[in-house]
C-alpha cells in the first residue's frame, strides 16, 4: 500500500467508532439517494413508456402552425382588413397518396393514415360526443398499442365489410352497449350511419376510453362525405427518441403540422426535469450533510495527530504529502460509504420493487416502478466521494500549513 494511504488508513482505523458513524452517514446518503432515484426514474420511465405506447411517436395533421395568408393580404399592402369573408379552408391533407408515399420513402418506422371526425354516438336514448377515428386496421395495429388494449373482440375485425365499430369500454358502459349492438354515429355534417360494435378496448386513459370510436377509414370517409380524404398520419418509429427530428423533417416536407410525442407532452417532460432537479438537489443536500460528518472526524484526527504531522514534516514530508494523507482519509471514508451505500441502495430498490399493490379495477398485481440504472450509482457515489474529499481538504490544508517547530516545542 502506498505510504500516504497507509498512514491515512491507520488514522481512520484508530478512530473506529467515529469512522464507522461517518461512513454510515455517507452510506445512508448514497443508499437513499439511489433508492429515491430508482423510484423516481422508474415512475418516469413507466409513464413515458405508457405515453410512447399509447400515442403515435409523430402525428401529422391537416393543421398548419401559421394560418394561411388570405387573398386580400396577398393583393393589398394594407395594415388591416375589415368585413372580408376569408377563403374557405378545405380541411384534409392534400394529395394524401403522394404525401404518404413521400413519407414512406425515408421514415424509419410504420405509418398509418386516418380520418378523424367529431361526432355523436347514440344508443337508445343516450348520446355521447365522440371522436370518430377512421383507420386502416392493419396499419393502425402497427402504430399503436390498440391491439393489446382490446378487452373484447379483435381489432382486425374492423377489416370486415360493413359499418363496424370498436369503442372504449367506458363509452360502452355509459351507452349500455354490448358486443353485437348497433349504435348510431352522426357527424357534424349531419351524415349518420348505424355501426355494429365488434370490439371493446381499454387504454387506461379515461378520455380515450370514454370518447373514442374506431371505424374503418372508408366508413369514416362516407360519414364525412369526402372520398379519399385523410387528415391524420400517425408514425411509429423504431427509435422513439428520433421523433423530434422526424417530425421536423415531415413538417418541412409536407407543410402540415407534425407533432412529436415529446412536443405533445412538453409540459409533462419539463415537469419531470424539474422533479429530477429537485431530487438531485435533495440528494446533494443529503451528501453535504454526510460530508459534515467526515469534516468533523478529519478535523478531530488532524487535531489529534498534530504532533505526528510535525514529525512527518521533520522527516522530510512535504505539505502536499500531509494534505494528501488527510484527503485520502476523507476519500477512503467516502469510498467505503459509497460502496456500502450502493449495496444499501440496491437493497432498497429491490424491496420497493417487491412491494405489491392490488387495485379493484385491475386484475394484475401492480408493483412500484423502479429502475436499476448504473448512472444513479455512479452519480451518488461520485458525489459522495467528492463531498468527502472536499470535507477532508479543509482540515487537511490547515494541518499541512502548521509550523512543525511550534508543535514540537509545545510537545516537548
Amino acid at each position, binding site marked *: 500500500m502506498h505510504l500516504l494511504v497507509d498512514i491515512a488508513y*491507520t488514522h481512520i482505523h484508530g478512530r473506529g467508532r467515529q469512522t464507522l458513524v461517518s461512513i454510515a452517514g455517507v452510506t445512508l446518503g448514497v443508499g437513499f439517494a439511489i433508492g429515491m432515484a430508482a423510484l423516481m426514474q422508474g415512475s418516469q420511465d413507466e409513464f413515458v413508456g405508457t405515453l410512447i405506447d399509447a400515442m403515435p411517436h409523430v402525428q401529422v395533421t391537416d393543421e398548419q402552425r401559421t394560418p394561411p395568408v388570405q387573398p386580400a393580404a396577398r393583393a393589398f399592402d394594407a395594415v388591416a382588413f375589415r368585413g372580408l369573408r376569408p377563403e374557405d379552408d378545405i380541411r384534409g391533407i392534400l394529395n394524401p397518396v403522394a404525401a404518404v408515399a413521400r413519407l414512406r420513402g425515408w421514415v424509419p418506422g410504420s405509418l398509418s393514415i386516418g380520418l378523424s371526425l367529431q361526432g355523436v354516438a347514440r344508443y337508445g336514448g343516450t348520446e355521447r360526443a365522440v371522436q370518430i377515428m377512421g383507420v386502416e386496421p392493419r396499419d393502425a395495429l402497427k402504430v399503436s398499442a390498440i391491439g393489446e388494449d382490446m378487452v373484447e373482440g379483435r381489432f382486425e375485425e374492423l377489416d370486415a365489410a360493413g359499418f363496424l365499430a370498436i369503442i372504449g369500454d367506458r363509452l360502452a358502459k355509459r351507452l349500455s352497449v354490448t358486443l353485437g349492438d348497433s349504435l348510431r354515429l352522426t357527424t357534424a355534417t349531419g351524415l349518420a350511419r348505424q355501426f355494429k360494435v365488434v370490439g371493446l378496448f381499454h387504454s387506461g386513459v379515461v378520455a380515450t376510453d370514454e370518447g373514442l370510436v374506431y371505424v374503418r377509414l372508408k366508413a369514416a370517409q362516407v360519414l364525412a362525405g369526402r372520398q379519399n380524404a385523410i387528415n391524420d398520419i400517425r408514425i411509429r418509429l423504431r427509435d422513439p427518441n428520433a421523433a423530434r427530428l422526424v417530425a421536423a423533417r415531415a413538417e418541412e416536407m409536407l407543410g402540415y403540422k407534425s407533432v412529436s410525442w415529446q412536443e405533445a407532452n412538453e409540459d409533462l417532460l419539463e415537469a419531470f426535469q424539474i422533479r429530477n432537479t429537485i431530487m438531485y438537489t435533495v440528494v446533494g443536500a443529503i451528501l453535504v450533510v454526510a460530508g459534515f460528518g467526515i469534516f468533523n472526524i478529519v478535523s478531530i484526527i488532524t487535531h489529534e495527530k498534530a504532533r505526528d504531522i510535525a514529525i512527518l514534516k521533520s522527516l*522530510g514530508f512535504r505539505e502536499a504529502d500531509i494534505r494528501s494523507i488527510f484527503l485520502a482519509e476523507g476519500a477512503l471514508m467516502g469510498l467505503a460509504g459509497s460502496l456500502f451505500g450502493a449495496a444499501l441502495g440496491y437493497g432498497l430498490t429491490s424491496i420497493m420493487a417487491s412491494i405489491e399493490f392490488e387495485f379493484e379495477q385491475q386484475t394484475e398485481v401492480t408493483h412500484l416502478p423502479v429502475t436499476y440504472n448504473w448512472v444513479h450509482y455512479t452519480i451518488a457515489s461520485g458525489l459522495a466521494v467528492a463531498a468527502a474529499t472536499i470535507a477532508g481538504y479543509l482540515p487537511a490544508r490547515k494541518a499541512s500549513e502548521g509550523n512543525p517547530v511550534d508543535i514540537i516545542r509545545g510537545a516537548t
Partner: protein
Amino acid sequence: MTALVEARGVTRILPETVPVTLVEDIDLTVGHGELVAITGPSGSGKSSLLYLLGLLDTPTEGEVLFDGQPTHELEKDAKSAIRLAGIGFVFQFHFLLPEFTVLGNVMIPMRRLGRWPRTEAEQRAAAILESLGLGDHMHKRPDQISGGQRQRVAVARALANDPPLILADEPTGSLDSHASEQVFQILREVPARGDKSIVAVTHDLDIANRMDRRVHLVDGRIVLDEQMHANV
C-alpha cells in the same frame, strides 16, 4: 574538514507583540564527521539553533548553508527534500507513530524517499534495528517497548535514509541514566557509520564533554566554542 552545515550570521526573532529573539548573530560551521554538543541554560536558544540548522525553521536574518548550498531562498518542498535525504532528527521524546510497528516506523522515511525497493528497505531497516539491539522488538508497537528502546528506535529512524547529518534535541533528556548511556553510546558511534555528523543539544555536561566539540549558548549567542580533543 569540509563544512556540512553552516550558519552565517543567523538571527531568529519571533514576531510577537513584543518580539522575542531566540538566537542572535550565530556563526557556526559543522564539518563532516563532527560530533558537536550544544549546551546552555534553558531558554538560551539551543533547540532554536538546532531547528534552524535542520531547516525546520527559517532565520529572520543571516543564512544556513547545507553542504555548501544556501537554503534561505529555497522553497518549502526543496527544504523538505534536503531534510528527507540529508538530515535525521532525534527529539527529546521519541515521537514514533503509535499505529506502526517498530520496523514500520523506521521504514517511514525510507518509503517516502523511495531510494530502496520495499523488500530492500525492510531488510535495511531490520539491519539498523539489529545493530541497535532491537532485533527482537521489530514487530512490536511503540507502546510495547520501554522508553529507552523507543528512543533507540527514534535514532534508527533518523539513520534510516543514511543522512550525513543527525540533529538530536535532548535525545537522552527523558531517559534514566542507564537508557541515557545506551542512547548516547549509539549516537557516539554514529560517525563511524560513514562520516556522519551529529549535532546534539544537551543539558548533560558529562555527555557534552564526551563529544568532539562543545558550543555553549547564553541568551541566544555563542559564548564558547571549544574542541574537546582529549575525549575524541
